[in-house]
């Protein structure tokens, strides 16, 4: 939810959030909790109209540009403290995963080490025999042992470079794009493409490993596009310098004064630069627990949700957020030309901030939802098959499939002889093979009781699973039904006296049905794990009321639509929709409050909750 009143104290929040980052992680949990409660309280006072429901979490949707602004603020902060230029500060921050506090601490401790580690400056040539990188590959080790360099051309280059290298002082000069020394004695041959034409543009970083601009561009593009890498090291083997942003920018973007190259290549390079920017934003977002990237394909929005940043907070809130965009793969232009909310295809980018489930799993918390999905993936099909095709041996409870033959079964495992039909011991059957008439005998009744007990847990699971799956299926079907109805409604609008607004009630209703079925679906996951008791009963009462209301509304939606019954149908549907909405709110609100109050107890161990008192079903 991003409502207007939040924006009023936006600036303050930004600084708060910066402070949090500096404070570090130890008190994060506490603060998150406070923040949640505080903002909730504020909500209540400041804008009673806009009251956030207890099952909604406070979050903010950020565009890529907004995140870039946050990054820029961090970079400027570091520039101010260290007195370095922006691109160096950016490299340092990326090296430290945007942890400003740690960076400042380390930098104050030993600036030259941090600069070398971040790939900003080359290592001082005080120990030339030491390997270039501590984790150097087997290759360079063995080569050193053999006393030879990989190629002749490389060795020539390295010799030249190290010869002309002046001892580096740890003051930071901006490693900008610069042509290599023009006073080079031999004509330049690019050691990668072996091109030696005089109009070649040799470029190097501070390490002075020179390569032609064409190879640099190809290398940088390949790193960005093929490997999604934002930290691009010098091409020379074992060189740890990282190309700073201005260097990459100059490679990919043509200055207005330069002659324009091939247009298709140019366009590609511009796209690569944009991709590079996106990779930087993604890295920043991934490094910050308060931020999460929208998981929808080709969406570049970010959501900031400090209330769900810590693991502990996920035991009390279900952080369903929306990045603010709609539809799949819709670009800026498309969403402008097409009004938002046309049809159900333009769905909100709703996702969970706390876990990888890319849909609304309210009311149940992430850990329980994950547990349920895993169980369903592992068990449901197998369980269904076992239920319909097998029985258990009355003696050892091994699961047995009867694949032919007579009803006299001999358990492979314990050698128990029994009758497949009545499950009683075979000995009591005498010679009455193939026609078991002993169903009510004591032995077989006992055997069947034991069987049903062992089946109970399977049955229990299937009870919840079938309802879960049913709601999922029904939600899909109601959307399908609506696409058909929509057409009909539009026709009717043309043929009858009804206005456009009067035929819109179905859309609202279908949306509500879909939403509620999603809630219902997850209530079954929740109920499966809820420990028995009054709380569970109350929960199931609410669930039942919502379910009944949703089924009623669904039924109304399936009624034949005729011009003459539209006004009555409209009245009914609208009333029911409002009621359903209310019931959904009740379920979500009550469950969310329950989490905050620590009311829910589980029948299994759930991360972030107390151990269950005893396992019972």
């Amino acid at each position: 939810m991003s409502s207007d009143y939040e924006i009023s104290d936006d600036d303050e929040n930004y600084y708060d959030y910066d402070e949090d980052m500096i404070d570090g992680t130890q008190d994060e949990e506490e603060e998150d909790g406070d923040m949640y409660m505080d903002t909730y309280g504020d909500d209540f006072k400041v804008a009673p109209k806009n009251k956030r429901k207890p099952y909604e979490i406070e979050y903010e949707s950020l565009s890529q540009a907004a995140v870039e602004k946050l990054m820029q603020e961090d970079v400027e902060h570091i520039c101010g403290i260290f007195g370095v230029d922006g691109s160096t500060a950016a490299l340092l921050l990326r090296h430290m995963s945007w942890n400003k506090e740690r960076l400042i601490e380390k930098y104050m401790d030993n600036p030259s080490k941090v600069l070398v580690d971040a790939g900003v400056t080359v290592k001082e040539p005080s120990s030339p025999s030491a390997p270039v990188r501590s984790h150097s590959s087997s290759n360079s080790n063995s080569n050193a042992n053999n006393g030879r360099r990989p190629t002749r051309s490389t060795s020539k280059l390295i010799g030249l470079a190290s010869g002309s290298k002046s001892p580096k002082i740890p003051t930071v000069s901006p490693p900008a794009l610069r042509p290599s020394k023009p006073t080079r004695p031999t004509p330049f041959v690019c050691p990668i493409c072996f091109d030696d034409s005089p109009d070649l543009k040799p470029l190097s970083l501070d390490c002075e490993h020179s390569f032609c601009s064409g190879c640099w561009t190809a290398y940088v593009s390949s790193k960005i596009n093929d490997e999604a890498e934002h930290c691009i090291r010098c091409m020379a083997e074992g060189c740890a310098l990282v190309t700073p942003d201005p260097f990459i920018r100059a490679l990919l973007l043509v200055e207005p004064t330069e002659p324009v190259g091939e247009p298709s290549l140019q366009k590609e390079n511009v796209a690569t630069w944009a991709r590079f920017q996106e990779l930087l934003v993604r890295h920043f977002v991934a490094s910050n627990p308060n931020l999460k990237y929208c998981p929808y394909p080709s969406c570049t929005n970010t959501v900031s949700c400090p209330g769900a940043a810590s693991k502990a907070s996920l035991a009390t809130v279900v952080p369903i957020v929306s990045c603010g965009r709609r539809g799949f793969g819709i670009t800026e232009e498309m969403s402008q030309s097409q009004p938002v909310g046309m049809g159900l295809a333009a769905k909100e980018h709703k996702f969970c901030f706390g876990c990888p489930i890319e849909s609304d799993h309210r009311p149940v918390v992430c850990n329980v939802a994950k547990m349920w999905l895993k169980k369903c993936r592992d068990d449901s099909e197998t369980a269904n098959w076992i239920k319909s095709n097998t029985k258990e041996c009355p003696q050892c409870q091994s699961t047995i499939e009867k694949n032919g033959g007579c009803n006299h079964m001999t358990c492979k495992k314990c050698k128990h002889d029994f009758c497949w039909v009545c499950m009683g011991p075979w000995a009591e059957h005498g010679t009455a093979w193939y026609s078991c008439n002993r169903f009510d005998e004591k032995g077989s009744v006992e055997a069947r009781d034991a069987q049903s007990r062992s089946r109970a847990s399977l049955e229990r699971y299937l009870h919840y699973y079938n309802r879960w799956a049913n709601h999922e299926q029904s939600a899909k079907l109601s959307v399908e039904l609506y696409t058909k109805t929509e057409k009909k409604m539009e026709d009717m609008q043309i043929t009858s006296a009804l206005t456009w607004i009067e035929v819109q009630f179905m859309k609202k209703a279908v949306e509500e049905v879909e939403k509620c079925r999603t809630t219902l679906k997850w209530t079954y996951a929740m109920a499966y794990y809820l420990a028995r008791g009054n709380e569970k009963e109350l929960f199931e009462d609410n669930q039942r009321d919502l379910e009944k209301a949703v089924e009623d509304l669904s039924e109304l939606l399936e009624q034949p639509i005729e011009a003459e019954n539209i006004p009555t149908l409209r009245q009914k549907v609208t009333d029911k929709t409002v009621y359903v909405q209310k019931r959904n709110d009740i379920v979500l609100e009550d469950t969310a409050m329950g989490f905050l109050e620590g009311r829910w107890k589980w029948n299994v161990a759930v991360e972030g909750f107390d151990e269950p008192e005893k396992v019972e079903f």
Partner: protein
Amino acid sequence: MASISARRLSKELTEIKNEGCPVGINLVKADDFSTWLFTIEVMGESLYQGEKYTLQFRFDSSYPISSPAVQFVVGDGHTSPVHPHVYSNGHICASILGNEWSPVLSVVAVCVTLQSMLASCKKKERPPDNDRYVRNAPDNPKKTRFHYDDDTV
């Protein structure tokens, strides 16, 4: 791009033909700029004394920006050396063929590296997950994401 890879490979080939390969490495076939074959022998004292293996290089148009696909040839009388970083299908787990590839490396440099990888081996054995890997291995070893955990051999 294609021209860069062709120019670079022709230059490397000229250099090999003019200056010859390092000891123990011989060019077998380089008729085009897509597949080259070398034989590789370990000189001096080693576990692989007297053994000769065939090494295959496959280049795509983005060479040398991206690494070549390098593997030992298996079949038709060829085998792959028994080595903790070489799978029985000829695939090689070496960081310079993956994330530590640098465009300044060359075909000969790779051969020399692999030669020294064999030379420094202390025990002839297959990688621990050989069977599982070979069963599911892609045709091109570059499609495998190797995990480089051992720098000692």
